[in-house]
């Protein structure tokens, strides 16, 4: 589903060259729950941003479902994100002035293939699925961190994306809420055969991943299925 070939991201800070990603090559199959792990500064968030079309690589190639991302225009990248991808951010990233229902509906409202009724139905269903239907008219600030992150997951899922990206979604949550969010990801993955790519630095999160890719200094240092990892 995702083919990554010799991906590089180089930041220049004056005369110093920082290789955030240094020749990453890997494939991600449909339905995988992939964990990208590594120490701070290892390049895991950078890799996620490249895969999620939030940033441009310095070199290399990413192909998602046969589409070479390097060939897309800015508008096509936006539409690709809207139609194909879903995002869950570390700090929930909900629109503070929109209610839970409006936040969840927002990505669907922009799709040309959805009617108003359909958007309402899909948003309602996904909110029911995450157990926050009764809070649908609340504003994000009226919810706990765990609830906000679940709303964020609902927003990412409302368009039934091909790939769900999650950037350290439990970083601001306590362990109980973290577990609840991870369980939700697992259920989504199993129920919908949803491809999930998640960045994490918490070791205990690996229990939820099918496959774990470890990065160090922008390089893949290990890649393997859970409990069977090996150096690539």
């Amino acid at each position: 589903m995702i083919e990554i070939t010799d991906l590089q991201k180089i930041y220049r800070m004056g005369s110093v060259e920082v290789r955030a990603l240094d020749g990453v090559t890997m494939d991600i199959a449909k339905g995988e729950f992939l964990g990208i792990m590594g120490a701070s500064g290892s390049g895991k968030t950078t890799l996620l941003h490249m895969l999620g079309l939030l940033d441009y690589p310095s070199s290399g190639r990413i192909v998602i479902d046969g589409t070479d991302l390097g060939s897309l225009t800015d508008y096509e990248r936006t539409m690709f994100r809207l139609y194909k991808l879903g995002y869950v951010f570390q700090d929930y990233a909900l629109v503070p002035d929109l209610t839970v229902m409006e936040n969840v509906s927002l990505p669907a409202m922009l799709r040309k293939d959805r009617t108003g009724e359909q958007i309402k139905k899909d948003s309602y269903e996904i909110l029911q699925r995450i157990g926050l239907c009764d809070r649908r008219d609340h504003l994000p600030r009226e919810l706990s961190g765990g609830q906000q992150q679940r709303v964020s997951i609902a927003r990412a899922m409302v368009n039934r994306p091909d790939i769900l990206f999650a950037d350290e979604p439990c970083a601001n949550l306590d362990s109980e809420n973290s577990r609840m969010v991870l369980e939700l990801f697992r259920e989504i993955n199993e129920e919908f055969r949803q491809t999930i790519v998640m960045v994490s630095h918490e070791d205990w999160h690996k229990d939820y991943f099918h496959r774990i890719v470890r990065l160090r200094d922008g390089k893949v240092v290990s890649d393997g299925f859970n409990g069977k990892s090996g150096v690539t």
Partner: protein
Amino acid sequence: MGKKELNVAFLLALRSLQRGSRSSVVLTVLIIAMCFTNMVFLPGLFNGIGQSITAQIVDYETGNVLVGPKSGEQYVNDLDAVLDLINGMPGVERATPHLTKAATLKYRGRVLGVSVRVIKPGDEKFVSPLYSKIIAGSYLGEDDTGEVIIGKAVAGDRTIKQEDEFQPSLGGVQVGDSITVEYGPGYSREYRVKGIYSTGWYSADQTIFTTWSDMEQVEGQTLDHAEYITVKTKPGYTEKFIKNELEQYGVAESVSTMSDLLEKGMGRALQSFAIINMVSLIVGIVITTVVLFIVITIKTINSRKQIGILRAIGVDKEVIMHNYGMQVVIMAVMGIFCGVILTFLISLYMAAHPVVTPEWSATLYLTPMDYVTNSLILFLASVVAGYVPAWQVSREDIQSAMRA
């Protein structure tokens, strides 16, 4: 940009205004309302002064149409015939003659040079509201002789010492007092002050009025000539129409409309007003644009992270730009509405309490077209001021915006 995208932009804009910082919205709306007031106030006041001056010139100097002597002549001669001709024309309310005599007034040791205007009080009532401006005593009767009405400025005030007076006066003449009028070397006449008037028009308040009958006594002959004739038009008739009609009917004298005279006499002053109005308008627009630009720039800078997130989840930058643009549009409409209400209330207040100076009294004179024009200008300025920073910030790359 489709309907769906515009709907989303509008939803985001509306929710931001409804649920975002209320104080920020109220402040911005007030700023726009103040900018609107700033844009229309000074031009409106100048228009008010212009209207006031024009009205006073019509009321106390020229009427709607002024008939003067033929070229090369000192007076309008064969007065009765000319008056009959003019008064008989459709659209003419009344024509009334005027003569002016230079004179020296004497009263209790005070000496003052003034103009004595000779009028036919009955006809004058149809042309000038002078009769309604009497503040003491009464207006002149048609056949009064030996009596005058004098302007408040000429009458003066007994409580003010001569050396403290702003302008020379007779030092406090009252109704019933006797004053001496010297018309020329060797001819003087005692007059009883029948009334004192105050028009608010400097030139009129600096003069005294007597009757045609009285001047005939002074001259010792029937007066069949006038310096000029002022003509009042009936409602629904334009000055231009009356002028053309007079010329067509064979009035050989010089005929001028009030507008012609105003153009000659005050053309430069009116041009100056127009220039000041334009400068004031441009300054107002610049201030409004800059203020709104700053307000929206701050708003968008504070929302950079959110803008980055919106873009990340697939919201097109056009939607984001229109979101902020529409916020400005909504606030501009609200601000302009408040500004219109505010200036309307000010104009009502000033109509009841005009700004009065020795030269003129002014109200805030604003036509519906002034409101429409200024509203449109301010609206366009607001749209530009809102959309430029919105356009800039929506084009920022996602990574930089999200890191903000």
